[in-house]
């Protein structure tokens, strides 16, 4: 049976989202979506020895978008970046005890934003001379999925 409405876990994350905010000088920054079609998500990560030590998000979107961003920060924190790259939208949705079908695209966004932040981090590692500052323009260039 298709799920009607949100699970308790979604509502719990919506009401008490974890890791809200921004990080100054993040090691990786990802931004996906577009306010014109409704969704906008920003992810900030701090990385040490390729392990995500801290993570923050900001989201403009529906309840599901907020809950999935919160959940993805919980999942990815403490993970090796290569492992975190493998987190899928289904992982996020199932950790939240499922999402209504028309809301799956919001969890896509959360996984994408995380992956963008990791890619940004990896890019900076390769060319450290441009890596120290949060560079929105750079991340935007390769933020297509």
């Amino acid at each position, binding site marked *: 049976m298709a799920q009607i*409405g*949100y699970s308790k876990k979604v509502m719990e994350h919506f*009401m008490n989202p974890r890791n809200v905010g*921004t990080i100054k000088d993040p090691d990786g920054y990802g931004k996906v979506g577009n306010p*014109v079609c409704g969704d906008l998500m920003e992810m900030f990560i701090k990385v040490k020895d390729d392990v995500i030590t801290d993570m923050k998000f900001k*989201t403009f*979107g*529906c309840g599901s978008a*907020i809950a999935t961003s919160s959940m993805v920060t919980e999942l990815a924190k403490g993970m090796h970046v290569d492992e975190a790259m493998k987190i899928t939208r289904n992982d996020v949705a199932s950790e939240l005890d499922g999402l209504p079908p028309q809301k799956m695209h919001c969890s896509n966004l959360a996984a994408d934003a995380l992956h963008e932040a990791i890619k940004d981090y990896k890019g900076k590692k390769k060319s450290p001379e441009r890596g120290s500052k949060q560079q929105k323009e750079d991340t935007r260039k390769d933020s297509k999925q």
Partner: protein
Amino acid sequence: MPQQQCGFRDAKVKKIYLDHVSSKPIHPRVLEFAKGYLKHGYGNPSSLYSVGLEAKRILEDARIKLAELINGENENSIIFTASATEANNLAIRGTALRNVSKGREVAASTIEHISVLNPMKELQKNGFTLNLIPVDSMGVVDLAKLDEVLTKNTTVTSIMYANNEIGTIEPIREISTTVHDKGLYLHVDATAAAGYIPIDVKADGIDLLTLSSNDLYGPQGAGALYVKPGIKLQPILLGGGQERGLRSGTENLFAVAGMGEAARMAKDEMAQEARRLKGMRDKLIEEIVTIEGAYLTGDPTQRLPHHASFRFEHIEGESILLNMDMYNIQVSTGSACSSKTLEPSHVLLAIGLKHEEAHGSMVLTLGRSNNMEEIPTIVKAVKETVERLRKLSPLSNKGVM
């Protein structure tokens, strides 16, 4: 959406229902009046034996009450349907198809309900010309444009009495003059307006008018179409020829009887109830627009007395709805995220809002259960909701660190 017992939502907090435009509870007096017909109303109004005659009498009584609410010529001008959607379909398809010899053009405003716009688009697919009349930023129909596009081939023009999403009341009398000057029939969807503002089909110059039972605090499952005597339309449901042949199918006696009683109550109590609601509405608007980045949508004065609609910058409507529900306050939104199609409300786009502006919409519609004492609680919940969601939003610079 299921009720959630988490966050700071306390089950003991009194419910404040503010979505009367979507659905209303049956009024207890209406239920009291009609419930007998649910139990015993098995007579078919078309049958001649006594039980059938009793059913027929109930039906005619309801017809009279509805005609009185809108000052219709007589009870024969009321056709019962199963919903306002069906009445809209009958009005539009019924007149357009019946009058093809007079022309193949139809017109509607861009902010009509989907149950008006979709039959219009269906006609368009079948070779009719559809003219959509724009509205201004308040949602008022552009009269000059209406005058410009209507021709003698325009058989039906559909303009709503008042809009359900932004509360704006249309200048129906002026619209009627233009329609009858240029085209043929004016259909008015009065679903959102009936029971809140006086409607007089004769003085207003209306040919066809849609009413909904539930919007008058009647049971769901009934609607009605007023058809001015002499108007030519054809049925869209064929069968046993009930409702003067215009709508076949045995009438839903319980719902129709309830709708009639709801109409009588609305007529008797409208003036007083509208005054009460307007006081609350004005207070709500006054307080909520003081929030930074909060704007009223729709016309500030030509407005339904129970309707307060807003948009908030940088936040999204579905999350507003969920957050308000945590205070046990039920509201609605025209946000893309809350719609099946993930498209923003066509009404909000029609009044010129950008997608991201339409995103932050919240609609509050007051009703009989509400009272002035609730207003501070509502305002506080709205303020806290907006503040919390803005802290989460990347578009707002009020970040938390």
